[in-house]
């Protein structure tokens, strides 16, 4: 299978990906591509990245056999890749460290980022503090209300958080605003994109940095379970944690790859964020991919209980994995994710992020239908501390 060799030199994954940007950004992307091509072939760069992942992030993150929950479900064995144990509480930091190292090599003293739930913003603010860079994070005003604690975290870390009031005031608009900042300040600024979307080389670069997740699993699963998993399951918003764990498994054709999108109130309600399940190919944020859009090609507002999945597009490599049939994509709605959230809290003593709870919910759905010796590997991409308010409100609890 040649799918691991993608993208091509212009950033295409089959018909998806590419560089769909205004001329004003082309030069900055050319510079970035040239620099990143050197980085990925430079042993010193890779060694420093690895060092930082080990000593700053705390990698490798463990794989954990959720034995009690598996036996309660009564079928397949569920293994969790514990990205929730990383410094800052999610997989996002793998990528922000990588991009900050590239920014440092390009001598850019200022980094910018977009954020939805705030996890990527926190991860970007964290590495900016770590490497002594100025950091500006763009965040929709709606998201700032939903994720006030993360806004404060970013400020503690020294970042400025810019409130975005345009469009739907959420992640996609924050991304538009960050792009505008980049176009204006391209001389001294590096744009740290948080997911496997955006124009080439971002989808490839973010995937490369995140694929440490899957590489560790390739080694850990045989050690812990005696063999590779039968199924790998991850939630998909933009799709960075899923690409990270899928990528090394793509050549192993016996391993099923399942991406779980946010079904919100259900696909039929129209209030969801399932771009692959319910979207159509189009062009947004610099790449061609599946998008949630109306008949005129306007991007529509999305809904998910988890702000991190609340995005109307999806990384172009996922679009290609879907079309080529190498990965399957399913949806889990808000209430199913919430049930899985509670189940993991109560049966394993782990509070998962609401994003990751979508992947857990799908595992819980299929596990009972499978033999006991089937191995499911779920990417537990983040911890749920940030979601206390959301979950508490759903249960009628108020925090004072």
């Amino acid at each position, binding site marked *: 299978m040649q799918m691991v060799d993608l993208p091509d030199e212009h950033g295409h994954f089959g018909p998806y990906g590419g560089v769909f940007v205004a001329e*004003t950004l082309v030069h900055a992307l050319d510079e970035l591509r040239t620099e990143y091509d050197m980085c990925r072939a430079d042993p010193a760069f890779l060694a420093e990245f690895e060092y930082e992942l080990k000593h700053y992030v705390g990698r490798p993150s463990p794989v954990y056999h959720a034995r009690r929950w598996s036996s309660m479900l009564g079928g397949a064995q569920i293994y969790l890749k514990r990205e929730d144990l990383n410094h800052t509480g999610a997989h996002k930091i793998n990528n922000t460290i990588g991009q900050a190292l590239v920014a440092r090599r390009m001598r850019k003293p200022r980094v910018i980022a977009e954020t939805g739930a705030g996890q990527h913003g926190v991860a970007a603010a964290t590495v900016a503090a770590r490497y002594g860079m100025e950091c500006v994070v763009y965040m929709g005003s709606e998201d700032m209300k939903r994720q006030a604690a993360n806004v404060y975290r970013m400020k503690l870390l020294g970042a400025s958080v810019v409130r975005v009031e345009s469009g739907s005031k959420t992640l996609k608009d924050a991304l538009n605003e960050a792009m505008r900042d980049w176009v204006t300040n391209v001389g001294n600024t590096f744009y740290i994109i948080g997911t496997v979307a955006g124009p080439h080389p971002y989808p490839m670069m973010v995937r490369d940095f995140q694929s440490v997740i899957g590489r560790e699993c390739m080694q850990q699963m045989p050690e812990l379970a005696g063999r590779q998993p039968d199924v790998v399951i991850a939630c998909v918003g933009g799709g960075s944690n899923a690409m990270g764990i899928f990528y090394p498994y793509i050549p192993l054709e016996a391993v099923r790859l399942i991406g779980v999108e946010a079904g919100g109130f259900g696909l039929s309600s129209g209030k969801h964020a399932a771009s692959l399940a319910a979207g159509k190919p189009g062009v947004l944020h610099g790449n061609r991919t599946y998008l949630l859009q109306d008949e005129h090609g*306007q991007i529509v507002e999305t809904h998910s209980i988890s702000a991190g999945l609340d995005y109307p597009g999806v990384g172009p490599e996922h679009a290609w994995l879907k079309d080529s049939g190498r990965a399957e994509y399913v949806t889990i709605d808000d209430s199913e994710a919430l049930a899985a959230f509670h189940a993991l809290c109560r049966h394993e003593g782990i509070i998962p992020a609401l994003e990751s709870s979508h992947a857990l919910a799908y595992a819980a759905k299929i596990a009972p239908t499978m033999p006991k010796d089937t191995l499911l590997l779920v990417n537990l991409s983040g911890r749920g501390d940030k979601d206390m308010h959301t979950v508490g409100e759903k249960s009628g609890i108020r925090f004072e």
Partner: protein
Amino acid sequence: MSRIPNTFEILRRSGRKALIPFVTAGDPDPAATVPIMHAMVASGADIVELGVPFSDPMADGPVIQRSGERALKHHVGLDRVFAMVREFRDKDALTPLVLMGYANPIEAMGQTEFIRAAREAGVDGVIVVDYPPEECQDFARNLRESGVDLVFLLAPTSTPERIAMITRIASGYIYYVSLRGVTGVANIDLADVGAKIAQIRARTALPVGVGFGIRDAATARAICDIADAAIIGSRIIQEIETAPDSASERVAAFLSGVRLAMDAR
């Protein structure tokens, strides 16, 4: 056939430069657009750029973003934009008309259908902000075969290699983005612009227009010394935004002043 080359040829012979105003289709409301376009022509516009609203206008500053949001409240999509073009053509068969927007509405309609509709409605040129030449070879060829020009942007950061690539595929005119940033936010450095335009002219015989920072008659006039056209967007939208009920009159008054300054060189 596109009316653009002929328009520039007539201007050249009379020693004048092109005034190219921009308006977003459907701003402040769909009924206002065609009257605004006619008012633009009556007050001295040589070519009209009609913006196709998009939910995520990444290359635009706050003024044009807001105009797009106002238009989208009225659900103005490409079908209604083409209806406006046809209505404009009922009374004006001569002024070139250029659609400016983003890729996704075109992708949603389908490129083939878009080109057919553009030609039939009487569109002369198309600017797709996020279709760089690498990603739109077929689109460019099919447009050209339909007699519609594909206008490309060049930026201060465009390298000589890119200028060469873009001038090979472009037609109609070149839209030079006079500053680093988004539409309508800063002032122009004329010396920088002049130097870059000289580089562009070395590669192409196409007319070169300058846009993204022209906010008054004096700047437009100064641009005419170094370029073939002054393109004005955000500043016009501000007129519409300030007094939506008298948008046509205010736009006409503003453009008349610009026209006067441009012709008084």
